[in-house]
């Protein structure tokens, strides 16, 4: 509701005459300016997201509140608070076996078992996460916008702190925007029971000799982007980003089964442990990712098609392609319906192994984390949104995600050939959002 620059066409002739008369009265040659705006309440976006994987795997309930307010002319403060609660079971990395398998939980203080032939899920998986971020956005000049921010998050075994800055500059009658961003993060991982010694075997109950201390990592992200208005109906965007991670990048809870190279049966673990041989994973201490992203947004008579593609490649040999399409159907000015489809495909990290073979030389790095394997993902969903009488909006979104992966080549030896070594993953996503306080 800023009217410091009211449209001249909207100004009645009376107003113009009054301005002239008042200037004459006050002996002014030019009318002054007025900078007044009604103090607006916070614009608040709230969202509740439920992510639920089938077969009792991970469930996440996430509550997110974002508040934004114009604190001074063109200067915005943005605060976000997020709360996540994760429950369920997460694949540990071990493969199914013909017998009951026993595992020591990360704390070293308890054990759990997995039935014969069943995927090895670590049921002790439970976490809550609280995250807070703040950003300040201000113009540096008429065409340049700066935003700086900080973020913090806390889980019982993970702490994140981050700083970020972004500068955007408009050119070409504001049809082109060039932006540059940088983000720095420092994360500390304090695994339950300490971080395991890389590739060391899982030990029996109460045996902590394989545990080390905390880990930490630094992540630096750079982003270079250009947004171009092509015409009244079309806008395109290209981004290049570089992300460098340095430090403890291993997942302290993930293990690999060590099996006989012929029979595929797990071999015996450390003497006296009563366990089969499982070793903790190990990943390189650096990871460089690069990605290219392109987006086209086009208006078709009030409805908007959005198509984007991302290519990501990293020095772990993970390459991924993401293609995403959204179409927003507007019904009048107050309701919309938006189908969404996303295709995802990635190659495996070079050190991805479904299992390790007994008596073979131990590799320097190995992980059986399915997220670093080769897989395809498909997401389909719909969203419905509606404006509220007070100028806010609510929306509901439902999506279904399905993921199909491929085990590392040559893994299905002996008994393993009869198991699903990369189980499909299906998940349901439901989100409800409510925005209020909009101008």
């Amino acid at each position, binding site marked *: 509701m800023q009217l410091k620059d009211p449209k001249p066409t909207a100004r009645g002739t009376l*107003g113009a005459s*009054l301005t002239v008369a*008042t200037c004459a*009265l*006050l002996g002014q040659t030019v*009318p002054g300016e007025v*900078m*007044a*705006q009604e*103090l607006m309440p916070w614009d608040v976006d709230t969202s509740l997201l439920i992510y639920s994987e089938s077969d009792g795997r991970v469930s996440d309930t996430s509550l997110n509140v974002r508040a934004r307010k114009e604190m001074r002319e063109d200067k915005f403060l943005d605060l976000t608070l997020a709360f996540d609660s994760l429950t369920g079971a997460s694949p540990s990395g071990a493969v199914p076996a013909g017998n009951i398998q026993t595992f020591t939980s990360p704390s070293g203080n308890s054990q759990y078992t997995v039935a014969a032939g069943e995927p090895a899920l670590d049921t002790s998986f439970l976490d809550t996460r609280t995250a807070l971020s703040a950003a300040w956005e201000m113009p540096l000049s008429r065409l340049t916008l700066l935003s700086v921010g900080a973020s913090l998050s806390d889980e019982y075994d993970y702490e994140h702190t981050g700083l970020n800055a972004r500068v955007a500059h408009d050119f070409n009658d504001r049809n082109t925007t060039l932006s540059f961003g940088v983000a720095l993060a420092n994360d500390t991982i304090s695994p339950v029971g300490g971080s395991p010694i890389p590739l060391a075997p899982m030990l029996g109950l109460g045996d902590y000799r394989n545990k080390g201390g905390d880990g930490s990592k630094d992540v630096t992200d750079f982003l270079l982007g250009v947004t171009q208005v092509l015409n009244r109906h079309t806008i395109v965007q290209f981004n290049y980003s570089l992300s460098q991670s340095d430090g403890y990048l291993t997942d302290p809870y993930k293990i690999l089964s060590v099996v006989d190279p012929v029979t595929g049966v797990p071999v015996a673990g450390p003497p006296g442990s009563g366990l089969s041989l499982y070793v903790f994973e190990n990943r390189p201490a650096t990871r460089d990712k690069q990605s290219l992203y392109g987006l086209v947004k086009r208006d078709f008579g009030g409805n908007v098609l959005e198509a984007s593609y991302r290519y990501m490649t990293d020095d772990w040999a993970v390459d991924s392609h993401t293609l995403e399409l959204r179409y927003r159907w507007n019904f009048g000015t107050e309701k919309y319906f938006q189908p969404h489809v996303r295709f995802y495909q990635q190659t495996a990290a070079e050190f991805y192994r479904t299992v390790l073979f007994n008596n073979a030389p131990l590799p320097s790095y190995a992980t059986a984390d399915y997220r670093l394997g080769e897989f395809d993902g498909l997401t389909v969903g719909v969203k419905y949104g509606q404006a509220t009488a007070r100028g806010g909006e609510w929306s509901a979104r439902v999506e279904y995600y399905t993921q199909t992966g491929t085990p590392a080549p040559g893994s299905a030896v002996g008994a393993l050939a009869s198991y699903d070594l990369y189980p499909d993953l299906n998940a349901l996503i439901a989100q409800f959002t409510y925005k209020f306080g909009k101008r």
Partner: protein
Amino acid sequence: MASPCEVLVSEHDRALAERIVNVAAAEAARVEAKLSRYRPGNVIDMINTAGGRTIVVDDETARLLDYAAQLFELSEGRFDVTSGVLRRAWRFDGSDRVPSADVIEALLPLVGWQKVRWQAPQLTLEPGMEIDLGGIGKEYAVDRAAALVRPLSERCLLNFGGDLLALGPQTGGWPWRVGVESLNVPGAAAKEIELGRGALATSGDTRRFLRKDGKRYGHILDPITGWPVEDAPRSITVAAPTCTQAGMLATLSLLRGRDAEAFLAAQGVQYWAFR
């Protein structure tokens, strides 16, 4: 000015701040002394007691009368500095003493800028007529004081009885925060306005009204009929570059009655109306 005046200064230098306050206060006092219709011997008093004789006025008064003449034109006769005599019939004291039509009819011959002979610097009123520049005076004083303060500092806000002007933002670029509320609706949703530069002026019927047979008579009088304007908002606050302009837009809009908001919207100005 019959209302509290304040000067807010955002400066570190105490002596400078005091100078600013003194300059503004002196100008407020000067304008009030000159334009108040309650001050015997001032130019308004001379005009109103001239008994049909021609009065020669000074430059400043002449500019104000020119302005009054232009407003009369622009408002098609609704803004009229000669309408003050109607107050002899209307006393807005919250009672039900609505005057009779005869009384008002008898006063109407004394109202009407078109009957005034004004050729700067000479002003001739018909005997019995009066002029009252009170509808312009307070806002004019704010703008005058602002012009004198401006060379000293722009980091100040002048507030003369609710009509106010920010010369510029506070130190550090922070705008001033001004509360706006309906003048006579207790508890009506107050608005908070950030004012970096420019003026806000409010016109309204405050607590001055009459009520008879369930009908409310607001104190904004239509000089053409002699009766209160019907269906006007209770108060209007307008933002404009100068306080005088903001005040005139607020007053002119109230004179439009039920079309007040539409009138302001057509002028392309920011306003806050309470009904």
